[in-house]
């Protein structure tokens, strides 16, 4: 049974409709890549899942229950951990404070997070706004992990980072997948790096899911057609 299942989601920002029917499933322990060119509705879909944007039709089920009517913080408590686009840390809290402000008990704690990202341990008492972009990204991922989610959502986790740092983050994601069996929904544009971790892919075009299947079935033709690469 799917951990997260959304079907036929439509959503609008005021008068302009952004989603015209998105279907998506994430199974237990599965890593799903949500792909598509800019402006195709990836981030909007994430917002709808996290209940930061109301959908006008369609259903969202998480862990066997409908979450369509719940407010954002309740959904997060049920186990959806979001690492938002643009590494949004609390800038005038320290690394440690950023992490404990959000923590809920479970297997993830400060020590485990530092094991995954040793740099955060070194920067423990530094303010988040003094960290480099990559470190802020690591902090944002760790903050989501500290809530002990069942589903981790990574929205453009490697955008605008140096190649070395990207590798470090991708390595951490692979490690998460191999060691914890956490379900992950990852939004990204780089097929080569996604290929190492993603089991399946869903492609959006103009607010609709137009292709979904095993990542290995993502042929160059398909990616050429929908992603322009």
């Amino acid at each position, binding site marked *: 049974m799917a951990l997260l299942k959304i079907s036929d989601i439509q959503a609008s920002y005021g008068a302009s409709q952004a989603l015209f029917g998105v279907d998506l499933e994430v199974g237990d322990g599965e890593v799903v890549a949500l792909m598509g060119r800019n402006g195709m509705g990836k981030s909007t879909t994430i917002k709808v899942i*996290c209940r*930061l944007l109301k959908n006008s039709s369609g259903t969202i089920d998480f862990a066997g229950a409908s979450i369509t009517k719940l*407010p*954002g*913080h*309740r959904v*997060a*408590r049920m186990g959806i*951990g*979001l690492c*938002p686009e643009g590494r*949004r840390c*609390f*800038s*005038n*809290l*320290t690394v440690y*404070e*950023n992490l*404990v*402000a*959000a*923590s*809920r008990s479970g297997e993830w704690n400060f020590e485990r997070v530092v094991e995954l990202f040793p740099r955060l341990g070194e920067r423990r*008492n530094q*303010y988040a706004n003094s960290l480099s972009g990559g470190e802020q990204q690591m902090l944002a991922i760790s*903050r*989501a992990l*500290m*809530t002990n989610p069942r589903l981790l959502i990574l929205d453009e986790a490697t955008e605008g980072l140096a190649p070395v740092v990207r590798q470090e983050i991708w390595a951490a994601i692979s490690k998460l997948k191999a060691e914890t069996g956490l379900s992950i929904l990852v939004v990204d544009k780089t097929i080569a790096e996604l290929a190492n971790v993603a089991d399946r892919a869903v492609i959006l075009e103009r607010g609709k899911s137009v292709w979904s299947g095993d990542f290995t079935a993502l042929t160059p033709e398909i990616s050429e057609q929908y992603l322009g690469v």
Partner: protein
Amino acid sequence: MISERFLNYTVALLILGMALGAWVMDEPFLITLTTKAVILALAGVGLNLALGQGGLISLGHAAFFGLGGYAMGVLASHAQNFTPIMETPFLIEGTNSMPIIWLVAIVVSSFFAFVIGLFSLRTSGVYFIMVTLAFGQMLYYFSISWPAYGGEDGLSIYVRNSFPGLNTLDPIQFFGICFVVLMVVIYGVNRLTHSSFGLALNGARQNAQRIRTVGLNPFKIQLIAFTISGAITGLAGALFADLNRFISPTMFSWQTSGEIMVFIILGGVARLYGPVVGAALFILLEHWLGGLSEFWHIYLGVILLSVVLFARGGLIGALSKKENADA
């Protein structure tokens, strides 16, 4: 560069030293002046929790200050007249015991803070300021038109309320009570600020949506903080009423809210000792500049303006050369 912690200890010791020095030199007026600064600082510490940590710019904290004052006034006036507050359905007598009055002041002001917060926290920004101001003004006009406790003229309480084992009419003993209360509250607020609740409150100020995505309800966090904040300011109101042995609708006025906010801005927003430094400076200026000119508020305005323009982070920020409060 001075560390903020060292600065905080210095400020606390200076205030204590001021009162003890005045006691040794037999200057009861100076002790009372210091006590006033301590009590106003306490009101500021209350507001600072909402304003500094929570980013909730409340222009209605005089409501809680006044409620605390009137809690003292109502209880003590019935005690001095030997009339019960109410007889049916059950008897409630007045009291002149400070701890009971404090408890009532805290309960009443936190209840009102909870209700006011329930409505005002649905808004933000300038609307939040206006809604809190409106609630404050409601209580102000209510107190003016409530003849039972003096109405517009206010109400005098002839004897200061009692505290077990102490003579509260002795200025230095009353100062001691107020100083200990302030220190205890500051300790509590400091613990709260560094708890995960405090960090979440800080996060909700920066970005409510981010707090939501990690599973916390910003509304609830801010409501709790606002309630605690109101309770502290209410306690300060009860002490202030006891200091003057007089209550009046002025305690509820929006100028009072503004003054409490001025303490925080002078001393440093979100700094633990910001309101303490601010209130002490305010009293100092009021006393000193007030002696020079009737229009001392003009000079205060100039000073406030220069602090806002040139000393980001208030006086504590300027002295410790750091724009952000210590973690």
